């Protein structure tokens, strides 16, 4: 035990800096930075009585002020999506850099609790995910720091009730669509290819088709589904230029989206899938009751299955990507062909 706790301490240092490069004065975070914060039920205590919120114990926050107090840096934080009344001063040990790596850490942490507590919605697909997330987490451990596995156990012991926001918000993308995303990545980033625009069907058309299908089947509940689909469309239009494009696709975007054209009427399912990867990040700004979120999640999963069913018509096969002339002219043609 003695030696392992020593290692734990070392890795704690790692965690606190989260791969950041602290400035000379020892400040780990800067004003305006968005990071993840641990917090106890305290924060939600009042709300919980009203049964208002899902129990999130890791939140996205924004650093408002940084001050040195009694030789320790303190950070004034604002919980994104929450009233300013909850703003508070915390020390660095409550904060985590908002990085993929840390999100993964949170997921792993959360996963352990998921096993203990039983899962939210008992779908077999999610059990599968869990085991793959597990593997992933373990790999990360060995890669980064052998001691972390132990540390994680301690953590989950101490903060047993913590549930990660991003994990809760995660949407399980069906395996064949995950494969599609990897092929898409390979085509664009490794082979300098792009999806030819405009796509057919467009994101708009796919959303309409789905709504049509649901209307025929279920009638009334489609109002709720319709609202969710509108939400997806809205996210897509806003998020596409900001976070859904690989660097090499930017030029194409400039050419394809002129005036006030909505990306959802030009781009197709290839880019829509990427939105689902980013969905937890965007949606973490929305406060929603757990029950409502569960229902919404079902709809999102059902929609993804609909895309999966129509994979061959909605999505380009990897060989159907076009070589991006702009990029390949500059960089030397078809280096991978």
């Amino acid at each position, binding site marked *: 035990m003695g030696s392992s706790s020593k290692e734990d301490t070392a890795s704690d240092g790692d965690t606190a800096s989260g791969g950041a490069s602290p400035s000379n004065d020892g400040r780990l975070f800067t004003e305006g930075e968005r990071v993840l914060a641990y917090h106890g039920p305290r924060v939600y205590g009042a709300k919980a009585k*009203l049964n*208002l919120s899902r129990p999130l114990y890791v939140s996205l926050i924004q650093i408002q002020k940084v001050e040195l107090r009694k030789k320790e840096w303190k950070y004034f934080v604002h919980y994104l999506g929450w009233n300013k009344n909850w703003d508070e001063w915390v020390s660095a040990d409550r904060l985590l850099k908002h990085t993929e790596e840390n999100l993964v850490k949170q997921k792993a942490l959360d996963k352990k609790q998921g096993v203990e507590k039983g899962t939210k919605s008992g779908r077999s697909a999610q059990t599968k995910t869990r085991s793959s997330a597990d593997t992933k987490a373990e790999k990360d451990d060995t890669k980064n720091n052998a001691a972390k596995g132990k540390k994680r156990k301690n953590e989950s012991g101490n903060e047993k009730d913590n549930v990660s926001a991003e994990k809760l918000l995660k949407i399980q993308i069906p395996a064949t669509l995950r494969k599609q*995303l990897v092929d898409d990545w390979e085509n664009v980033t490794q082979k300098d290819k792009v999806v030819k625009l405009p796509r057919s069907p467009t994101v708009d058309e796919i959303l309409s088709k789905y709504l049509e299908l649901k209307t025929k089947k279920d009638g009334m509940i489609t109002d709720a589904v319709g609202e969710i689909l509108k939400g997806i469309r809205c996210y897509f239009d806003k998020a596409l230029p900001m*976070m859904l*494009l690989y660097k090499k696709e930017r030029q194409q975007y400039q050419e394809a989206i002129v005036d006030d054209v909505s990306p959802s009427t030009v781009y197709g399912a290839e880019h829509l899938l*990427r939105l689902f990867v980013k969905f937890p990040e965007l949606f973490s*700004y*929305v406060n929603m009751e757990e029950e409502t979120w569960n*229902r919404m999640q079902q709809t999102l999963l059902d929609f993804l299955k609909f895309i999966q069913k129509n994979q061959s018509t909605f999505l380009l096969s990897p060989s159907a990507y076009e070589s991006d002339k702009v990029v390949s002219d500059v960089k030397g043609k078809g280096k991978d062909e």
Partner: protein
Amino acid sequence: MGGGNDEVVVGGKDKEEEEQDGMSVHSPCKALPSSASSLSKEQSEVELELTLLEALEIYPPVKLRGIHRHFVLYGLMEYLGRSFDRQFTADEVLQLLDRFYNIEMLKSDDEDVDVLNHEEDFTLPQSYFEKEEE
């Protein structure tokens, strides 16, 4: 504006007409066409409004201005739906909200503006490159 806030408006008002001038002029407790003059109907209107206000604590109106608009609206639909055990359409919720807020006039949430104000390249998370194992 004033005067009407405490009293429940009784009698079948012409709803269409009221809807047209947005909000602000009439009492928030105006009756829906379906709820004519019976006391129980009035009570249910009050209940409805109270529940909506309760729901706004989770789903702040200001979020109806930003990119999350539809999901917040969906949250409200579900909240009311569960409370009254019937379906609420988006329009219904918006009309209810209209008794209290002029959504158009709300300043959009700084936080929402913040979410998507810096461009970043898409990256596929590492987990996608690892084989799914059973």
